[in-house]
């Protein structure tokens, strides 16, 4: 039904150029007729204007902010244009260790890991390139993704190596990629189990949905209570293992894992609920046919169910990828970004800078985040999402 112009002969709105005004007596009917003719614009314009005013213009202004320095002057403030200085500061200057992290020394194992991961990534990319028509635009796209991916991988491996320390960029990547992968796997497992004919599955469905609705701030504090090694419910276990009064908050990986567990708890429901709905709406005939042909449970899942839900699965992963990049509440409340900056995400980094009145660098961090999100989003859609949606 999309794109049809059904009722009456309403002219294409939105581009309605004012017609030559004839002198006509004002009347209610004419006004109603005029308003009717403008309905298209009247309906859409408010939303467009709100988004323009509060998303697009702030975005442009942010770009300007990221290129300038905030200066308080008497009776207010002004922004002094400094060019790319703020970005330089992030990548090379005083904020480098905070943003990118400190590079460690790659030992032999580090190089092996890096080479292995890079090899796998390049192999997958090459396969995806060969799979389609060899157009220049696709070649350039794949090369870009390969370059960016290798650079990112190099940064991750170097900062996680001995003596290194990941910056907020790498920490955010860890949250996003490891977090979303975990959430997807757990969500898929639960959805597959819940899609079976089991008595009482409605109970599970409602219970599994709950965490998604709960304020992240509340979730964060609840997990702080639970993970307290002295007063939390698992204190006896921690005691027994010899970890009594060892505070995970002081260990970078302990803190990061706590943040990721909180995030997993909160966002698995989203994956679960959408995947379950997708599983329940798939057509039963192929499965029945496969059963008649004697296919095993695993074969059915791998060859029939998974391809059927692939488009939806790909979309929820995309949505979660984009949302996960914005992670803020959980690390801010759970660990305050600490120890040091070990659990700080990019949004939190921008917030910390904003609080210290460094608006320019804060905007630069925000813009870097926007750039990374956009790049990952577009690469994901081009390389994976399109294929699943056209195949499925």
């Amino acid at each position: 039904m999309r794109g049809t112009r059904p009722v009456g002969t309403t002219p294409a709105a939105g581009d309605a150029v004012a017609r030559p005004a004839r002198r006509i007596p004002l009347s209610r009917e004419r006004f109603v007729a005029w308003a009717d003719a403008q309905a298209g614009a009247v309906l859409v314009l408010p939303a467009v204007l709100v988004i323009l005013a509060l998303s697009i213009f702030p975005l442009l202004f942010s770009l300007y902010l990221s290129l300038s320095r905030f200066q308080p002057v008497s009776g207010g403030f002004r922004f002094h244009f400094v060019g790319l200085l703020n970005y330089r500061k992030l990548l090379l200057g005083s904020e480098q260790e905070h943003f990118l992290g400190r590079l460690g020394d790659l030992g032999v194992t580090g190089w092996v890991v890096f080479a292995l991961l890079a090899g796998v990534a390049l192999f997958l990319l090459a396969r995806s390139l060969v799979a389609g028509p060899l157009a220049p635009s696709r070649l350039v796209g794949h090369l870009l993704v390969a370059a960016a991916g290798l650079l990112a991988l190099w940064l991750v491996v170097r900062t996680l190596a001995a003596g290194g320390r990941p910056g907020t960029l790498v920490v955010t990547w860890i949250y996003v990629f490891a977090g979303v992968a975990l959430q997807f796997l757990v969500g898929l497992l639960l959805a597959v189990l819940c899609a079976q004919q089991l008595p009482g599955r409605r109970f599970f469905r409602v219970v599994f949905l709950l965490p998604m609705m709960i304020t992240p701030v509340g979730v964060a504090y609840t997990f702080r209570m639970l993970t307290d090694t002295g007063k939390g419910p698992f204190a006896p276990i921690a005691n027994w293992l010899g970890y009594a009064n060892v505070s995970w908050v002081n260990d970078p990986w302990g803190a990061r894992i706590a943040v990721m567990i909180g995030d997993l708890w909160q966002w698995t429901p989203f994956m679960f609920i959408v995947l379950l709905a997708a599983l329940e709406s798939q057509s039963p005939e192929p499965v029945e046919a496969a059963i008649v042909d004697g296919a095993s449970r695993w074969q059915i899942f791998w060859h029939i169910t998974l391809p059927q839900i692939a488009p939806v699965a790909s979309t929820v992963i995309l949505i979660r990828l984009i949302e996960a990049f914005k992670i803020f509440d959980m690390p801010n409340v759970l660990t305050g970004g600490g120890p040091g900056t070990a659990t700080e995400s990019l949004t939190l980094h921008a917030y910390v800078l904003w609080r210290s009145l460094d608006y320019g660098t804060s905007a630069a961090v925000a813009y870097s985040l926007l750039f990374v999100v956009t790049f990952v989003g577009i690469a994901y859609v081009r390389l994976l999402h399109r294929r699943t949606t056209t195949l499925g």
Partner: protein
Amino acid sequence: MTLRWRTSPTRPGPLAAVVSYLILSAWAFVVLFPLYWLAITAFKLPIHVNEGPTYVPFLDFQPSLHAWRYILVDLRNDTLRPYLNTVVVGVTSSLLTLILGAAATYGLSRFTYRIRLASVLTFLAGAVLTAFAIARGLPWQLAVAGGLGAFALARATALRRIRGPRLGNADIAFWMISQRMLPPVAIVIPIYILFQRLALLDSRTALVIAYVAANLPIAVWLLRDYFQTIPIELEESAAIDGANRYQILWRIVLPLALPGLVATFLFIFVLAWNEYLLALFLSSAKAQTMPLLVAAQNATRGPQWWYMSVLILLMIGPVIALAIVLERYIARGLLLGAVRG
């Protein structure tokens, strides 16, 4: 055996059922235990918390209402005000979002829009120039009027002859929905400065405006499908009977889309209820919302888990009730959104 499978292809065998139940129950425990712990901590005395964990009320410890009394009676206004703020901001912003979103979505599903890209770019360029003019010290009334005048002039003369690419409905919808990609932190500082200039910082109005902008893309995304499933014939017959657009929308379309509208409203409401980042930037004392109040607990008084549990319970109670009511709608809405992309 084949026959049994065919009648119900997803019924598991006994072993599979047991394993399934084990896994599902394990995750249900993972989900519910934190909530249980929250609930019992809210009834503990400090001594019951500080002397190591106690698990079962009445057996391990004697429940007490002291934390509830402290939060609801002693601190009455300090708790009530943020609560009221959250309710007011949540309801107002969700209603506004719903109205704007429903109108836009309906328009996009029933009209054909073809806007010249050149017009859009001219408008944007004009707006940026106007902003610069204001920043350089021109009175804003003059700058805005000049900008609009220039745009109208350009549109009436030069733009008419350009035959560039046009933006259709799908482009507009995609543009709106793609705003979800925008990290809020990338736009919050300009919004902060804007509200500071308008003297709206730390007011409910500021939060409402910010939340409308933040949630509008989600409303459009969720509502798009509901409007497209409404049969167009009803609207056509109403038009033949002489109803105008607005009457059709008000009398026929909105009642038919009511379930979708309610579900979308509640979903947006939950998002606004839980929102933290924008509230952190835009409000401090007067317009403080519940997430801020909860987050502030730690900073002011150290981890006093019993008070914090009460606050968290007060905050999540309504949304848990909503989640139970909403379960079906959410699944459907999100699935349709996800299929469409």
